[in-house]
């Protein structure tokens, strides 16, 4: 996209949208920075024009263009305009805006492969229509010189058209043959080439039958299948990339006491890096300054925050909670523990690579079958008649009629319909065989933190606290952005409690908040700071003056509908397993609440992967659902895997399906849809076979004409596509 935009700008400088933008461009004459923002809430014509005119009025913007399909705006800005400033500016226009990392988006920037396929599809369509027109004239009785003329014109159209449009098949077939293997493209290529060859020969001898139209329609239908397939995956890929691009890899580096924003690639060992509360550690390092708490749940599954003090080492991926921290980097980029763990996962054999897709299975049966059949027909007729021409014609007819037009559409038509349906339900199908694998699943393993729970916390014992003290706790909690403090405020608001009026609220990073109330000091925070007794539950403590120390307990907040979803999956007959790195009481409580009988707590990343592998060895097909780095190995090892959109990038990359929304209901929908889709694919194979069973004897008997071939081919392709569409309507 970026490149295309630049190109068109430079190719046609006058085309810039507004006069103002023209003026700016003319004044500056410096290379423009290209910025992409994600605008998840835009939806109408008014939104487009509001964002575009608003941005074009901004002095730092040369031009802006909204893409409503992708819900993004592409901005050409002057080099000193920052992404944050523009995002904030769009927010003032009334639309939610997020920066997108240009590097992560580059892969879908120009959908070159898609365009190429579309072009070939168009050429094949154009040529097949014209040739079909001529063929219909021949079938309806053109004879002698007219027929020959029509055949020659058809040849003149077909040969260049197929030479261009058929290239994807030729290329694939060649790469398969080179390593002495057969794939679906080998019979396709052979059929197309043989059809062209014999037709040309027939035409030269002014014969009756030419298969130019068949060769072209075959190419057209197969390209349509390929294009559908490509579109489905391109949509999923660009949505997945957008998730990655939302995490802009930038860090604040302290250089001689001055803060500067740099990309992660620019960081080096020994740099001082500032991480603000709420920020994620960009590197491995040692805390040089500052006291805070760290959330390690994405790495280990622990929900309890840990204290962070100078001298302590931290790993990339941990989230800083309360106070600003200054780190001295000890490992950056690919050397961080986060990356090393992700790399380790990449080496492990994945469930997806062990799987042979239905299309591959069909090709394995089909490709040798048609070759043998066609060869036998050739030999048979040659022995019977000693006529090379007849024998070759019949062999070609057999290949064309059995040609996998419908087989080529059978899988992509269904996956397109199913993926589209699931996308609207909030699921992103990233891998092409993910649906087929999902249909085979019998065991589902859930991770706890971040998957079954939202990662946010809720107050467990809100009722047992006296109202007055709760309002004190709320007043104190308002002064902090710590997750526990936020949970207290939310709980209080839903119980209708007003926060107490406090003076001098102060957050002590790593300990808690304190304030003055009626001349007494009140504190909310860690056990040893307030005089409480620490337990194994996540808890914080309130001390009001001389009063008793109150314990406020927390538990992970369940995702909405988690209980219903688990119930639905239980009912559908799946074995459900809970697997977490968190402490035993927390996991036990959650398992009991959800009615899950099989659970494992305090599992290390390797334990998780081992459990999945041992289940696979017992013949179980495992669906792993997890979000943390500690789940990635298990996600890879599982037969098929799902991760929520909030997961770490590494986990999303490792999984086949991404869950976009916050509730878990789509999972059971996905399971049923996957089963239905696989059923449709098998039905489609059956339909395609049925057509072959009827048409092949005709071809072998030498009764097939180009007209019969065309009819069989089109009607089977249309039946298969219609069968796939049935999936969408339900």
């Amino acid at each position, binding site marked *: *996209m970026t490149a295309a935009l630049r190109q068109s700008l430079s190719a046609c400088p006058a085309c810039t949208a507004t006069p103002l933008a023209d003026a700016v461009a003319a004044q500056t004459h410096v290379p423009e920075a290209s910025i992409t923002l994600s605008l998840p809430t835009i939806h109408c014509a008014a939104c*487009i024009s509001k964002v575009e005119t608003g941005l074009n009025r901004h002095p730092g913007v040369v031009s802006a*263009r909204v893409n409503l399909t*992708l819900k993004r705006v*592409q901005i050409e800005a002057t080099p000193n305009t920052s992404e944050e400033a523009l995002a904030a500016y769009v927010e003032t226009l009334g639309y939610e805006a997020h920066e997108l990392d240009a590097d992560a988006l580059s892969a879908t920037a120009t959908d070159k492969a898609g*365009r190429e396929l579309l072009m070939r599809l*168009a050429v094949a369509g*154009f040529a097949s229509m*014209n040739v079909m*027109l001529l063929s219909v004239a021949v079938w309806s009785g053109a004879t002698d010189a007219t027929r020959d003329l029509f055949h020659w014109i058809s040849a003149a159209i077909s040969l260049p058209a197929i030479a261009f449009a058929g290239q994807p098949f030729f290329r694939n077939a060649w790469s398969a043959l080179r390593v002495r293997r057969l794939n679906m493209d080998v019979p396709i290529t052979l059929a197309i080439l043989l059809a062209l060859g014999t037709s040309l020969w027939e035409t030269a001898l002014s014969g009756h039958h030419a298969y130019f139209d068949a060769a072209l329609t075959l190419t057209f239908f197969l390209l349509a299948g390929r294009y559908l397939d490509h579109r489905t995956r391109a949509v999923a890929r660009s949505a997945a990339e957008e998730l990655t691009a939302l995490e802009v890899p930038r860090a604040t580096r302290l250089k001689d006491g001055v803060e500067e924003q740099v990309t992660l690639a620019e960081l080096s060992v020994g740099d001082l890096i500032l991480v603000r509360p709420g920020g994620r550690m960009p590197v491995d390092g040692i805390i040089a300054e500052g006291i805070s708490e760290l959330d390690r749940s994405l790495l280990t599954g622990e929900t309890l925050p840990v204290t962070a003090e100078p001298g302590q080492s931290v790993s990339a991926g941990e989230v800083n909670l309360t106070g600003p921290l200054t780190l001295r980097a000890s490992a950056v980029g690919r050397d961080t523990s986060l990356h090393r763990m992700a790399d380790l996962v990449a080496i492990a054999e994945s469930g997806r690579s062990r799987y042979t897709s239905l299309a591959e299975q069909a090709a394995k049966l089909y490709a040798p079958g048609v070759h043998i059949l066609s060869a036998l027909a050739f030999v048979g007729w040659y022995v019977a008649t000693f006529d090379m021409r007849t024998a070759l014609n019949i062999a070609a007819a057999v290949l064309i009629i059995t040609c996998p037009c419908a087989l080529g559409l059978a899988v992509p038509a269904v996956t397109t319909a199913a993926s589209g349906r699931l996308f609207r339900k909030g699921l992103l199908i990233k891998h092409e065989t993910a649906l087929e694998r999902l249909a085979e699943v019998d065991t589902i393993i859930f991770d706890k933190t971040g998957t079954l729970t939202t990662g946010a916390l809720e107050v467990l014992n809100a009722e047992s606290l006296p109202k007055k003290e709760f309002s004190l706790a709320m007043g104190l909690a308002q002064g902090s952005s710590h997750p526990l403090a936020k949970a207290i405020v939310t709980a209080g608001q839903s119980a209708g409690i007003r926060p107490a009026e406090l003076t001098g609220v102060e957050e002590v990073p790593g300990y808690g908040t304190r304030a003055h109330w009626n001349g007494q000091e009140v504190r909310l925070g860690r056990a040893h700071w307030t005089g409480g007794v620490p337990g194994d539950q996540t808890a914080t403590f309130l001390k009001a003056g001389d009063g008793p120390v109150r314990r406020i307990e927390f538990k992970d907040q369940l995702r909405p509908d988690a209980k219903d979803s688990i119930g639905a999956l239980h009912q559908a007959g799946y074995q459900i397993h809970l697997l977490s790195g968190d402490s035993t009481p927390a996991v036990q409580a959650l398992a009991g609440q959800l009615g899950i009988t099989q659970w494992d707590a305090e599992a290390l990343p390797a334990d998780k992967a081992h459990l999945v592998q041992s289940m696979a060895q017992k013949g179980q097909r495992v669906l792993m659902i997890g979000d943390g780095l500690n789940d990635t190995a298990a996600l890879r090892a599982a037969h098929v895997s799902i991760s929520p959109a909030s997961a770490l990038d590494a986990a999303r990359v490792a999984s086949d399906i991404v869950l976009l929304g916050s509730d878990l209901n789509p999972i059971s929908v996905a399971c049923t849809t996957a089963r239905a889709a696989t059923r449709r694919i098998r039905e489609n194979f059956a339909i395609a076979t049925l057509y072959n069973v009827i048409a092949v004897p005709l071809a072998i008997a030498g009764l097939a004409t180009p007209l019969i071939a065309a009819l069989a081919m089109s009607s089977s392709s249309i039946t298969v596509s219609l069968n796939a569409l049935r999936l969408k309507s339900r």
Partner: protein
Amino acid sequence: MNILAYLIPISLCLGGLGLAFFVYTVRTNQYDDPEGDAHRILSGDYDKSPRN
């Protein structure tokens, strides 16, 4: 049948024109934002060409 000598080239030319036009639309990125284009027609702003 001499009419064929005119009709066939004409039909091929017309089809080819359609194809050339389609190629032009693909080359100028007109399929990148189908949803946005559907909405843009409703807005009063003058919009020269899709450029992203």
